[in-house]
């Protein structure tokens, strides 16, 4: 993973959904986010508190809470509309704002990423509210800003900023008004922004880089199913298929080469568009 410099702030504003993601949404309380994964070392520091406490799965985070991860640590939180935020190792994320509407659906959520790496997956149903102007999803920092709708993306800030789009469409631009131009990257593309320069043209995310980015220590979501995710699982799945799935009756697959080999010892009888502004000074 690229070394991430300090000073990058991630702010996410989340519009509430017309349709809620039932199970997760039901589990949410107003103005809080639920921790669904907490892998040590990870700690929580409440607003105004001097000492940090270990973060536990199931904890509810509110405005002002900060989550900090150490080497190998990770955390994932779910918002009321089902949107996810993953914090990789060596990161520091503050929940700056969690506003909800009259029916307790998130309207505005904002996070400040002081250091490290984060991945945001925005629930598709948010799009409808974003479209009506009653909700928005944005990423913002003193040096970079991204506003998103229905997408899955990651920000990595080192000597330059890189915006990786895993799903949806992302618009990236430099924050400097004097730097014109922007690029719109679709699925499986990334762009790079150097301070004071226009974003580069979109490039395919190299598989090798994607594997590193979506490693368990980095931004692979572990708490729930999400695609794309840890690329090592593809190889591991090949072994599981050969040693497990092809052997068991209950795991039959549709016939065809590559599917079940059959037991040879049987008895021998007969999207919507997403707009993201990433601004780097």
């Amino acid at each position, binding site marked *: 993973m690229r070394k991430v410099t300090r000073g990058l702030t991630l702010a996410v504003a989340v519009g509430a959904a017309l349709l809620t*993601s*039932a*199970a997760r949404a039901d589990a949410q309380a107003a103005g809080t986010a639920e921790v*669904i*994964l907490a*892998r*040590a070392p990870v700690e929580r520091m409440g607003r105004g508190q001097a000492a940090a406490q270990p973060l536990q*799965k199931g904890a509810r985070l509110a405005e002002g809470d900060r989550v900090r991860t150490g080497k190998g640590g990770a955390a994932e939180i779910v918002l009321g509309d*089902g949107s996810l935020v993953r914090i990789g190792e060596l990161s520091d994320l503050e929940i700056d704002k969690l506003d909800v509407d009259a029916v307790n659906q998130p309207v505005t959520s904002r996070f400040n990423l002081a250091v490290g790496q984060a991945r945001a*997956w925005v*629930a*598709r*149903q948010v799009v409808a509210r974003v479209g009506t102007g009653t909700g928005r999803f944005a990423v913002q920092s003193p040096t970079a800003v991204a506003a998103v709708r229905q997408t899955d993306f990651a920000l990595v800030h080192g000597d330059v900023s890189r915006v990786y789009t895993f*799903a*949806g469409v992302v618009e990236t631009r430099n924050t400097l008004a004097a730097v014109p131009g922007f690029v719109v990257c*679709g*699925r*499986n593309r990334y762009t790079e922004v150097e301070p004071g320069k226009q974003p580069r043209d979109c490039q*395919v995310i*190299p*598989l*090798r880089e994607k*594997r590193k980015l979506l*490693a*368990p220590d980095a931004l692979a979501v*572990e708490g*729930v*199913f999400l695609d794309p995710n840890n690329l*090592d699982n593809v*190889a*591991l799945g090949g*072994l*599981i298929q*050969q*040693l*497990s799935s092809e*052997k*068991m*009756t*209950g795991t*039959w*697959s*549709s*016939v*065809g*080469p*590559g*599917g*079940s*080999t*059959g*037991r*040879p*010892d*049987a*008895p*021998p*009888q*007969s*999207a919507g568009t997403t707009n993201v502004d990433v601004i780097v000074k």
Partner: protein
Amino acid sequence: MTGWTPGVRARCGRLAAAFLLTAAVSLAAAPAAADQWTVSSGLHLDAWSADDSSGQGTGYELLVPVGIFFDTPIWGLSARGSFGTSQHDLDAAASASMTGFTDTTVSGYYRWRVSGTEIRFGLDLDLPSGVSSLKTRDLPAVQDEDLVALQRFGEGFDVNPTVLVYRSFGGWGLGGGVGYLWTGEYDPTEDIAGDDFDPGDELTVSVLGDVFLGDVWRLIGRVAYTHFSTDERAGFEVFREGDELDVGATLEWRPEPWWALVTVRDIYRFEAERLNAAGRLDEESRNSHGNEIRGALAVGYIIDDAWTVRGVLDARYVAANDYATADPLYDGGRFKVAVGPGVTWTLSRTFALDAGVRWFYLDAERSPVFPSGATINGVHADLRVTYRF
């Protein structure tokens, strides 16, 4: 069926050990992450019709699979099974059919990472919930593996522990695994006494490697070797399947929104052991298995976050075996090709629907399964619904 014999005690011991191991896996795991439930169901249909001269007639199989999975980042449990019916209408015989549940597979795994190496312990149990004992006249309902997804709905109680290891080195990765399948005894016929069948156990060792070639190419290669122990019928050794060498490679191209997979697989089986004139198992004089080559091509396009379409082409070729054409064990080989479209609709992160249909053509030469040979046309169709919560 056998009484309370040492074999029965051994099976009960295996059963107890399996449950204890499952419990240990469950209790030892201390999930520090989310609990993800997945429920999956749908429909699967195979339907086919053979040429008149083959006498094979027509057949179909309809299955309703149900699966429930519980996963955390480090351990998981699942149960999968089906309810269905299988029918074969031979031209010169009464209709044969079987209807009911299939065996139920209960699986568990525990995984963790040690210095970047992924280690996974798995345990699969095939519970004998399925239809296994058929009337003799219904045995033709056990259809060929190229025609239907599931040949037998039910067999014995099977236990399959596995250990897998995989490590990524950035641009490439290497993994391997070993599994041992204990197969249980079952009664294949309802109206024939003393023919309980106990398939041989299977020991499989597999090695896999993958490498990224450029920005959008990935090559996965794997080799597996399986050793079979002896089949027993009514407590007597009757057959031992020859060991199997399975070599395959998959080339993946994934610039997205386009993607493609090409897979080639060669399966070679060594000589089996059959009863000789003295009633003892002896290596067969010629190999009863011809070399098998499988190939698959899948091309897909991700339209947007919700819709993905794909086309699939599968092919399977099995060469004639080594027996003389006049020998009852002669198998002239076969060729099968299947082609068709598929679509995946992902409504949300928690709900997805997948549908696919493939038309297939099978050209089977004369063999013990197809005494007159056969050319068969048919379809494989799948509908699968997945919900996560």
